[in-house]
């Protein structure tokens, strides 16, 4: 990278601020047409203040670049603007200490090919007219930077003119092409200031402040030689011009007043001299100090010098004392009012009685008067007359008188000088005070604005807080209401609970009593049940006895069955024998025995069945009794547990 290019802050951002330094100023303007380019270049040129600035190259570059690119790329700018992708040209011109840059930003036209443009610019074989134009413009400038974004088609061409190209001539890279993707583009760095060309007042910008036209100036009030306090006011015949120039009319008026007062004092002396003829006779009037050239200078060591181009004509020799006396009377009448302390304006009125009361018109007329030389003439005549008097009169008394006049004049002059000093100082002080006041006011305004902004913020915050508080309060109120309701309900519920508990207590107590009674009854029943259980134990003994009997009887039955079987076998055998021999009697006897045995069996069976029934009945009774015992036991347990619970509840 060359030394010149190393000064570029950012190549990857659109806008010429990336090409320029931090202290740069960028002027910009949107161009919809190529008219008024001259004014634009005028405005820019008047803002570029550099010794090495090549105005001709700059103007030609501005005009040609805008014209060529505008008409080449944006022919139909006002129709279908956005569909065609054409937009107005953004024109930027930036200035820093080293260079001036001209930038044109616009969307690419369809026939403009970006890639390879640098080669096209450098080579001689150029086919496209556009490329030729580019080459021409590149030659105009010291350096060219072309930026192009591929996705959006935005194109920017920057032409750079260096104030001192010799510094960079060796290392300068003539042209630079930067093709950007959307991701690569950076934000453009800030210059010192952006100025829209419309904000520059054309009339004020282009007026030359250094013009000096002596024909216009009647009073030139110049400042001191020192640079710091040098101030110059130009007074023109038109009082409105005074205001335009910024000089304070009242200052000049006050100076004229002082001059008029000085004149009046001088004339008083002369009038007094005219009154006393004896003083005037034979005395030389030395008014040499009045005849110092053609100017009456009131010197002051302050910064403001008042130079009045007046002439004091000497008093003519021809005039006798009478003439002088007459003139002195005339002057006396004119200055009578000055004795009473009237202002210079009245003085003006006396000179020209037809003047209107308007101070400004009087002032203008006074100036005219002075300009035309009326006062000068007066002074000249007085001078001449004084010279005549000096020549004619040689009375020592007159000399003394004149010395007195001289001393008076000197004192008056000194007084005038002091007055001017004080005036100047007061004017300065007032100016300083005004400036300080302005600064203070501006600071106060800024502070107040800041305070207002802060207060507004505080107010907004307070309002927000208030709104949140109100909301909270509402919520709290609702919750309080709910709580009161709840408390009320709770109180009522508590009361109800209390009453209910009391009732329950009563009830529980009654139930306890009942249960205790039941317990007692149950206990009685238990005792009864226990007695039954004892009886059951007796019945159980009977049951066991009966069981034994049953088993015995069953054994007997089995024995009898065996016996029966044996008997039956015997019978059979007997029958067989009887059949063989007559055994009816034994059979009958056997039959009887069998019948008795059978009856015995039946009897025993009946007894066994009865015993079984009894056993079943007893078993059922036993089960019932057991169940009743269990019930009683459960009821006892429940009663005990309920009593325990009630006791605990009561404790709670």
């Amino acid at each position, binding site marked *: 990278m060359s030394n010149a290019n190393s000064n570029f802050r950012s190549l990857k951002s659109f*806008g010429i601020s990336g090409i320029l330094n931090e202290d740069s100023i960028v002027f910009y303007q*949107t161009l919809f047409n190529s008219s008024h380019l001259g004014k634009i270049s005028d405005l820019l040129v008047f803002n570029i203040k550099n010794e090495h600035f090549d105005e001709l190259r700059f103007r030609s570059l501005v005009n040609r670049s805008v014209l060529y690119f505008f008409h080449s790329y944006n022919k139909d700018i006002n129709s279908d603007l956005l569909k065609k992708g054409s*937009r107005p040209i953004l024109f930027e011109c930036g200035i820093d200490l080293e260079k001036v840059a001209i930038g044109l930003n616009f969307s690419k036209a369809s026939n403009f090919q970006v890639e390879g443009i640098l080669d096209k610019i450098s080579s001689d074989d150029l086919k496209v007219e556009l490329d030729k134009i580019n080459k021409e413009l590149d030659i105009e400038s010291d350096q060219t930077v072309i930026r192009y974004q591929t996705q959006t088609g935005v194109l920017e061409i920057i032409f750079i003119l260096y104030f001192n190209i010799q510094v960079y001539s060796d290392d300068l890279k003539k042209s630079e092409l930067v093709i950007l993707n*959307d991701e690569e583009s950076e934000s453009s760095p800030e210059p010192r200031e*952006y100025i*829209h060309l*419309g904000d520059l007042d054309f009339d004020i910008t282009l007026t030359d402040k250094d013009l000096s036209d002596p024909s216009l100036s009647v009073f030139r009030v110049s400042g001191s030689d020192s640079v710091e306090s040098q101030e110059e006011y130009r007074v023109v015949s038109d009082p409105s011009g005074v205001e335009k120039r910024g000089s304070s009319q009242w200052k000049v008026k006050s100076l004229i007043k002082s001059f008029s007062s000085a004149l009046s004092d001088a004339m008083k002396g002369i009038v007094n001299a005219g009154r006393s003829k004896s003083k005037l006779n034979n005395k030389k009037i030395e008014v040499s100090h009045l005849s110092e050239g053609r100017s009456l200078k009131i010197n002051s060591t302050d910064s403001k010098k008042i130079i009045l181009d007046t002439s004091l004509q000497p008093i003519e020799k021809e005039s006798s004392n009478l003439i002088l006396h007459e003139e002195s009377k005339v002057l006396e009448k004119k200055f009578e009012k000055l004795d009473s302390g009237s202002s210079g304006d009245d003085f003006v009125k006396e000179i020209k009685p037809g003047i209107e009361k308007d101070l400004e018109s009087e002032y203008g007329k006074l100036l005219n008067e002075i300009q035309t030389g009326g006062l000068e003439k007066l002074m000249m005549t007085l001078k001449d007359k004084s010279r005549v008097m000096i020549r004619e009169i040689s009375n020592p008394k007159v000399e003394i008188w004149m010395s007195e006049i001289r001393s008076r004049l000197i004192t008056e002059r000194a007084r005038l000088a002091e007055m001017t000093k004080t005036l100047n100082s007061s004017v300065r002080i007032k100016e300083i005070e005004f400036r300080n006041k302005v600064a203070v006011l501006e600071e106060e*305004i800024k502070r107040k604005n800041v305070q207002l*902004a802060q207060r507004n913020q505080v107010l907004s915050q307070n309002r927000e807080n208030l709104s949140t508080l109100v909301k909270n309060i509402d919520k709290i109120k609702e919750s309080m209401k709910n709580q009161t309701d709840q408390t009320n309900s709770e109180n009522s519920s508590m009361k109800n609970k209390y009453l209910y508990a009391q009732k329950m207590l009563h009830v529980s107590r009654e139930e306890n009593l009942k249960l205790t009674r039941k317990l007692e009854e149950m206990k009685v029943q238990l005792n009864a049940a226990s007695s039954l259980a004892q009886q059951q134990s007796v019945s159980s003994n009977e049951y066991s006895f009966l069981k034994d009997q049953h088993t015995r009887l069953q054994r007997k039955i089995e024995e009898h069955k065996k016996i029966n079987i044996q008997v039956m076998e015997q019978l059979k055998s007997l029958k067989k024998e009887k059949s063989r021999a007559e055994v009816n009697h034994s059979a009958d006897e056997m039959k009887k025995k069998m019948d008795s045995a059978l009856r015995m069996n039946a009897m025993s069976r009946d007894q066994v069945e009865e015993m079984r029934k009894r056993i079943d009945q007893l078993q059922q009774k036993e089960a019932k009794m057991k169940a009743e015992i269990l019930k009683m036991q459960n009821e006892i347990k429940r009663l005990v547990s309920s009593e325990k619970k009630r006791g605990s509840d009561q404790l709670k």
Partner: protein
Amino acid sequence: MNIDLDLKKVQSGLINNLYSSKIEDIPPFFLMPVSVFVYLQANEKLVSVKRALDFFTPYELNKFKSFKYFYFSDDIKKSFPFSQSGLKVKSFLNLKVSIQDIKKKKISESHFPGDSYFLSQQIFRGIAPLWLESGSSCLEINPFLVSVFVNELCPSLEEEKLVMARERDVRSFEKAILISSLSIFLVLHLGYCNLKFLADLRSFVFYEIVFGKSSFDSTSEINELIYLSSVWIENSEFNSVQLSFLKKHKKKSAQKIISRLEKERVITLTKLVSSDRSMEIQKAKNV
């Protein structure tokens, strides 16, 4: 300063305090600056028929003809400075000065018609005070009132597409109106003083937003401003936003607007100070 978009009912007793307009005078497809009401005599109620930023079709106007008058809420007062400046800027951009006017010294000879930088200066001086209409010490603007300004400045959007956009989605329709209007307003600050260009840009942005495009690249100045406007509207939800919002986004166009507005503010302050000073000097003279 916020505008109430959803005023649905107003007490009928306040009817005398409302602004009214004959229904005949309302142009179709003109975006309403505030909510529009009609008066139901039977019920003695004022009922809203249109929300702010909405418009009437010819059919709807015909339907409401029997009511004779439309009534507008008190918020319409806030929109007066904006509508007036919109008309003023429009007159500047349509300025056609004849040689006779120049001879009569109505227009300074140094400024010929079509002088773009002079136009931009005058337009800027006309729109800069709108940043202080809210009454706060900070420079802030309400995008809703900006749409009123742009509505007066630019011709109305295509009727068919307006209707389609509204029917598609009311919220995106309103957003598109606000973003497009704010883009035009910001673009005017940088001197884009061509009425045709502004109208085309407004319709371009409006349609892009209504029909789906949510993001704009920030390569060119115009796209930067459209991007900033869309971010602005998304964040503010139709409320006023201060100029400091632009300072956060380090875009070239934003920097230019901020410097221009701040300079204008300093100029107005110094003018105030100088006028006070001249008053003091005059007092000293009189004494």
